[in-house]
C-alpha cells in the first residue's frame, strides 16, 4: 500500500512503474486529490505501468497483479473477505480518500500481510493508520522527510513511532526490489 499527498505523486509513480505485471501482490494507491476533476493521475498510471491498473469500484475483489487506486471523494475500506468497500463519510484530515481510513481497515483485514509506505504530504493523514498497521505486525516504511517535498506527513508518522524504516526514495526502491 502506498499513501501520499502533496508532493508524493512523482515518487509513487516511479515506484509503481517498476512493478512487473506478474508481481504476485495487490498494490493499493491512496493519493489525496481534488474531487470532480477526472484527474490526469488515473490516465498517467493506466498508460504507463506494466501491472494491471484499476480505479476501485465498490465490492471489487482484492486480487494479485492489480494496482488499485482509491477514487476521488470516497474513502476505501477493506473487508475481511478480501473485497473493497467504499464510504462517503466526512473527510479525515480534510482528505477523502483518507490514508488513515484505508490503513486502519487494512490492519484489521490483513494485518501482518501488508507492507505500507507513507510519502510526502502537508498534513497528518496516514500516521495513525500506519501505527495501527505496525502494531499488527505489518512492515511500515516512511519516506525520509529530508527526501520528501512536504515533510509534515512523514514527520507525523515518525513522531508517533509508526515507521519501522525511514528511507529515501532510492532506498525504498532497493528494498522493494528484494
Amino acid at each position, binding site marked *: 500500500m502506498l499513501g501520499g499527498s502533496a508532493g508524493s505523486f512523482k515518487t509513487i509513480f516511479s515506484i509503481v512503474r517498476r512493478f512487473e505485471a506478474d508481481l504476485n501482490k495487490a498494490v493499493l494507491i491512496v493519493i489525496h486529490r481534488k474531487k470532480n476533476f477526472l484527474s490526469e493521475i488515473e490516465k498517467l498510471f493506466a498508460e504507463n505501468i506494466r501491472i494491471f491498473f484499476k480505479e476501485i469500484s465498490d*465490492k471489487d475483489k482484492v486480487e494479485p497483479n492489480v494496482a488499485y487506486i482509491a477514487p476521488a471523494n*470516497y474513502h476505501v475500506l477493506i473487508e475481511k473477505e478480501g473485497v473493497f468497500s467504499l464510504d462517503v463519510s466526512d473527510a479525515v484530515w480534510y482528505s477523502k480518500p483518507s490514508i488513515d481510513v484505508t490503513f486502519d481497515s487494512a490492519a484489521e483485514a490483513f494485518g501482518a500481510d501488508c507492507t505500507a509506505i507513507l510519502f510526502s504530504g502537508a498534513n497528518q493523514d496516514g500516521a495513525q493508520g500506519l501505527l495501527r498497521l505496525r*502494531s499488527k505486525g505489518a512492515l511500515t516504511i516512511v519516506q525520509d522527510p529530508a527526501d520528501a517535498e512536504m515533510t509534515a506527513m512523514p514527520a507525523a508518522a515518525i513522531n508517533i513511532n509508526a515507521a519501522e524504516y525511514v528511507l529515501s526514495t532510492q532506498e525504498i526502491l532497493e528494498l522493494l526490489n528484494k
Partner: protein
Amino acid sequence: METLTPTVTSSQLNEVIDLVKQIYGFDFSFYSKASLKRRVARILMLRKMEFYDLKHTLVNDNLFFQYFLEEVTVNVTEMFRDPSFYRAVHDQVIPYLSTYQHIKIWSAGCSSGEEVYSLAILMNQSKLGKKSFIYGTDINTEVLKEARKGIYSLRKIKGYAENYQLAGLKGSITDYFTMMYDAATIHNELKNNTLFSVHNLISDNVFNEFQMISCRNVFIYFETELQEKILELFYNSLCSHGFLCLGSKETIRSEHFRNKFKTINHRENIYQKIGA
C-alpha cells in the same frame, strides 16, 4: 507508542447488531462490516464510551438509539454530487422522461434532501417541473425533518456552486434559494414537487411505480447479497423502461440483474429496466 483511537472487534460488532435487531427491529446484519465498525468506533470516541457503556445505553435509552442510527448511517451528501451524473441524466434520461404524462422519481436513501432538491432543480430547468414529482425516503426520521425544511447554511450552498456549474446548469444555484442571514431556503415552487417519508430498503416493500429511481452511494454500505435483494425491490418499483441510477462506483454485478437492466451510461452507472 502513542495510543490509538478505539477499535471494535468483529464479535463486538455482532453483539451490537444483534441488540439493535432485537430491541429496535433495525437489521444491520448485511451492512459492509468495515464501514460499520468504523462508525461504531467513532461513537465510542465521540461519546468517550467504553464498549459495555454502549451496549447498556443502547438497551436503556431510546433517544440514544436515534443518535446511534444517525451516526452509523452515513449522512454526508452534497447538492449535485458528481456533476457528470447530472449532465448524463440531462442528456440521456430526460429526453425519454419528457414523453411521460407524469414523472415520478424516487430518491432512495435521500438523507437531508440535497439530491432531491438537485433533481428538482434539474427537472425545473428542463421545463418538466410541473409534471414531475420526487419522493425522498430514508430510514432515519431525523434527517428527513431536515430534508422537509429545505434549509441549508448559506456557506454550504455556496460550496455547491462549483458542482452546479460543472453540472452544466444555467444561472446560479442561489437562484433557487431565499437567503436570510446565513440560511438558504429552497423555493416553495420546488419544494411543492417533493415528498419525504420513512422507508426502510431492507424491510419495506414497493410503495409506488416510478419512471426513475436514484440510489447513489447507498449500496456501498451493503454486502452484495443485500444489494441484490434491493435491486429486486427497485426492479419491481420501476415502470417498464424505467431508469435506475446507482453511484458512479456502484455496479450491477450479478448475471441475473445484468439481464434485467440495460446499461445506459457505464461511467455513471445509469440503467434502464428491460421487460414489464
